[in-house]
């Protein structure tokens, strides 16, 4: 497609100036109407040729063309900007952590793994969660989500964290691994919840603790209910084994991913429990 002076081609299909002039009462009207378009590069090569042909025969239009060309030059000069000011200034933007997430299979259903460059940020039970909805959740938690179909598409550090988590989870579900040593990224987690989760991470494979027990371990013996709430918001289930924390009466307690998953994980670790009368934390 013909372009003029390196500008983007005309976007609409209109008849050429030559044809328009042959239909017009006065070809000079067509020529003069086309002159503004000429100085912003809207004319096709054919239009330009007709215009130059016409102005070589018509003094009025030739004058008008010269005027418009000078106006075009003046516009260009008036709008010119020195190259040394073209560099954009640094921006003062609120920062968000970039979180790379992907989906893996597991015996307890799809898991969405989310990691930053610093460590594993979240594990989400993904069977009933679409990627877009999960991305929205991440954003609400102040992160900038990046979805990858394959772990190797994540940036190198996040990729290493995702790979390590996926491999260790697979070994765990295959009965070949008891503990995890994936770096964890707690993000901007409040200190109490973080203390609860760190204490929970110390409960070994196949062992149980209670909400009251965790509360004592973090030096807040009265905070049993708050411990339950903090565990209910555990962003990294399975690897931070909140499934190993139960009620003091030895009933199973609650589980955000569903009690069936808690039971499944515990039985994988050789622990059998009956569901309690009131499934709550």
């Amino acid at each position: 497609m013909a372009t003029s002076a390196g500008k983007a081609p005309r976007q609409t299909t209109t008849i050429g100036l030559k044809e328009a002039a042959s239909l017009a009462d006065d070809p000079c009207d067509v020529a003069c109407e086309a002159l503004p378009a000429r100085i912003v590069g809207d004319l096709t090569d054919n239009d330009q040729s007709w215009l130059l042909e016409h102005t070589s025969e018509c003094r009025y239009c030739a004058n008008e063309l010269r005027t418009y060309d000078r106006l075009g030059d003046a516009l260009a000069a008036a709008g010119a900007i020195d190259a040394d000011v073209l560099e954009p200034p640094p921006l003062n933007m609120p920062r968000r952590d970039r979180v790379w997430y992907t989906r893996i299979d597991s015996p307890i259903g799809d898991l969405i793994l989310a990691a930053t460059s610093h460590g594993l940020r979240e594990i989400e039970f993904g069977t009933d969660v679409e990627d877009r909805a999960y991305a929205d959740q991440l954003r609400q938690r102040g992160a900038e989500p990046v979805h990858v179909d394959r772990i190797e598409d994540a940036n190198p550090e996040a990729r290493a964290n995702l790979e390590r988590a996926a491999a260790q989870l697979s070994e765990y579900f295959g009965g070949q691994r008891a503990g995890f040593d994936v770096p964890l990224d707690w993000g901007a987690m409040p200190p109490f919840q973080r203390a609860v989760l760190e204490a929970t991470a110390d409960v070994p494979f196949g062992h149980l603790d209670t909400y009251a027990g965790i509360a004592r371990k973090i030096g807040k013996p009265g905070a049993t209910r708050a411990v339950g709430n903090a565990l209910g918001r555990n962003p990294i289930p399975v690897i931070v084994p909140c499934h190993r924390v139960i009620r003091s009466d030895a009933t199973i307690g609650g589980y955000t991913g569903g009690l069936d998953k808690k039971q499944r994980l515990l039985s994988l670790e050789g622990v059998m429990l009956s569901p309690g009368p009131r499934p709550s934390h």
Partner: protein
Amino acid sequence: MATAPAAAVRPASSAVLEPAAHATFTFDDTLARYGAEIYRFALHLTRNRSDADDLYQETALKAYRAWDRLPCDANHRAWFYRIASNTFLSDKRKSNRLRSLDADGAAEAIPAASRDDDGRLDAGALLREVEAFIENLPPKQRVALVQRKYLDIGYAEIAAILGCSEEAARRSVHEALKKLRERFGDRI
């Protein structure tokens, strides 16, 4: 043997406009890609560095906040321009003040490069008048003219940016140029 590769390989240039793009292209990527031309647009609109810096910062912040609500198949470039242009137009409406020509403004005004210095009388003065003329155009005409003349953006995209028809975008530029002709035609 010439067979098509099994895995579909997307050309990098079209990737940003594809529906899957939003999930994999971050706000930072998009800003890195279009930031420079948006800043240039801001310079053309405001004609001074401080206002351009503010407009650019405000545009980036608004874009950042709206990023989550952007449909996946959005044209990111037009979307960015649109935010910049709307911010400029609404600032313009709010303050309704012309570019200040006080000492600060004059010191900071961007010098027009390659002015015609070949001895024609009043060339510099004329250029300043043309600059002032562009600044005093109705805002939409000004945005359309700047985009077409200085940033080489096509009418379909100008229309998308201004939220008008392609024909209206073309007409805005045309009208601005006709006015320019009326004002300066016999002095140039």
